[in-house]
């Protein structure tokens, strides 16, 4: 947009709805499912796992493009989604086993995984001329164009993850927040953990391929932060985070159109605003409770 050009309006956005339908729906779906999953990521204190995963997915997509252009790879080796999913699952397996060791902390391992993904994607990106702009989209989240195939894949993955999450919600909750107690009560904690982290890895890799690494990381952290500030139970936090994630995705897209901002950054900005709003709400609610004589919450 040039400085003299009139700012785009909501009316223009709605008039061109057919053009924006797929990317907006993709943002709503990805925001919703990643917001829900983000509650586990935030409360299990593995935020940088999702950062490392989204970067690994970006590297997977870049590798697929490189293999296509350099050696004419076809099939799974040249398929961006397949490569993103494979690298994300491999990273998930690697970082989920990382523990504080004698010489290297778990945080350092996560940092290294993040850097391998992000630097690797940029390095591989320099080897690809034709799809260089696609690599930028993946890393920074332009998300202007979402193909019907991408949207379909995202919807299927989101539906499967959502059904799994709702069906096994109690199991995921117990296994995540009191694993010893869950084991003693006979729950298959390892299986539940594997299902949860596979859900996260697959959702992150597919969403990264469609929307980009930045908004995906934002969706997995910010809506959950806001939800945890407001919720009284994990179950309500999951529902609130899903709703806020979808809102951040959709509203962020509209805001990006109106302000001519990068889509991923705009969606992250909406997420930050939600966290600030939730913190303000909590502070206000706490002040009212204290004024009424209730104990500090």
């Amino acid at each position, binding site marked *: 947009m040039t400085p003299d050009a009139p700012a785009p309006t909501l009316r223009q956005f709605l008039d061109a709805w057919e053009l924006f339908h797929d990317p907006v729906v993709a943002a709503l779906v990805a925001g919703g499912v990643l917001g829900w999953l983000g509650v586990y990521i935030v*409360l299990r*204190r593995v935020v940088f796992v999702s950062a490392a995963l989204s970067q690994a997915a970006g590297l997977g997509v870049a590798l697929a493009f490189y293999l296509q252009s350099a050696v004419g790879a076809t099939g799974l080796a040249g398929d961006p989604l397949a490569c993103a999913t494979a690298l994300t699952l491999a990273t998930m397996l690697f970082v989920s086993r990382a523990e504080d060791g004698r010489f290297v902390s778990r945080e350092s391992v996560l940092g290294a995984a993040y850097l391998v993904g992000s630097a690797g994607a940029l390095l591989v990106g320099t080897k690809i001329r034709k799809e260089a702009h696609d690599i930028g989209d993946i890393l920074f989240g332009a998300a202007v164009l979402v193909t019907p195939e991408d949207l379909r894949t995202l919807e299927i993955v989101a539906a499967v993850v959502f059904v799994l999450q709702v*069906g*096994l*919600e*109690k*199991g995921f909750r*117990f296994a995540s*927040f*009191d694993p*010893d*107690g869950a*084991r*003693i*009560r*006979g*729950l298959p904690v390892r299986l539940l953990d594997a299902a949860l982290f596979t859900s996260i890895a697959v959702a992150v890799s597919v969403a990264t391929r469609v929307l980009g690494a930045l908004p995906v990381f934002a969706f997995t952290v910010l809506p959950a932060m806001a939800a*945890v500030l407001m*919720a*009284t*139970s*994990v*179950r*309500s*936090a999951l529902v609130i985070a899903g709703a806020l994630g979808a809102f951040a995705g959709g509203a962020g897209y509209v805001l990006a159109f109106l302000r001519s901002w990068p889509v991923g950054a705009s969606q992250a900005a909406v997420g930050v605003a939600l966290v600030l709003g939730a913190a303000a709400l909590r502070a206000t609610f706490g002040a009212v409770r204290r004024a009424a004589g209730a*104990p*500090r*919450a």
Partner: protein
Amino acid sequence: MSGRAREGGAAARDDVLLRARGLVVGFGRTPILPAVDFTVRRGELWGVVGRNGAGKTTLFRTLLGLHGIVEGAVDRPAGVTIGYVPQRHVLDPLVPARTADLIAEGAERGRSFLVPWLGAEAKARVARAIAATRTEPLLDKRYRDLSEGEKQRVLLARALAGAPDLLVLDEPTSAMDVVAEREAIDALTRLREELDLGVLLVSHHLGLVSQVADKLLFLDADDGVALAGPADEVLGDPLFARRYGAVLADGEASRWPSSRPPAVGAARPTEPEAGA
């Protein structure tokens, strides 16, 4: 390393809740304690005592199936259910949780996590656990807002909601003031009698445990000692006396007046330890 087992009194076989046979605990294949044999029966209160790093946590995690066995076996008759009361800090204060929901979680067992709601029988167990622990006034509060004593009662209610035969408590009175500590132990001994529970109480607070336990497991990984048996016998054992005799004689136990006089006479160290 010294390991002994002395079990007093024969009880009906049906009352056996947990049996350790030649149990060696440790990390990987490396033992940290000698083999120990003991049997926990219904109605018994076992205290597991020892200093920090004595191997208490490793032993109880092994008994609960959370940690691999180096040697020997742990038998648990089919149908025996365990209620586990973790240390209060195990539940992350960041996780939003209402007290009522936390207690209800205790009623879940096995595949019940596949059903989104609690059945009538489970609800009745939860109601009994709440009544037994007198936690009704806490139900609408957030767990993180409770006092240490209240948290302990909630965790106890959560464990009781599973209608356990054996209750395992990990350092239930750590970081509590004396009054809260007293209330927690009074509640535990009352519930043990009312519900005819077997209890395994892990604590580094010897004065407390020695006053309420029928049987003791004394562990010391440094000296390679694992003693199991009736409390008076363990308290009087020279191996125990070397570590704890002076502590008991100096009055740690006096915080807990009891009908049973502590065996401090017999537990005084027979030889001074270096640096003592």
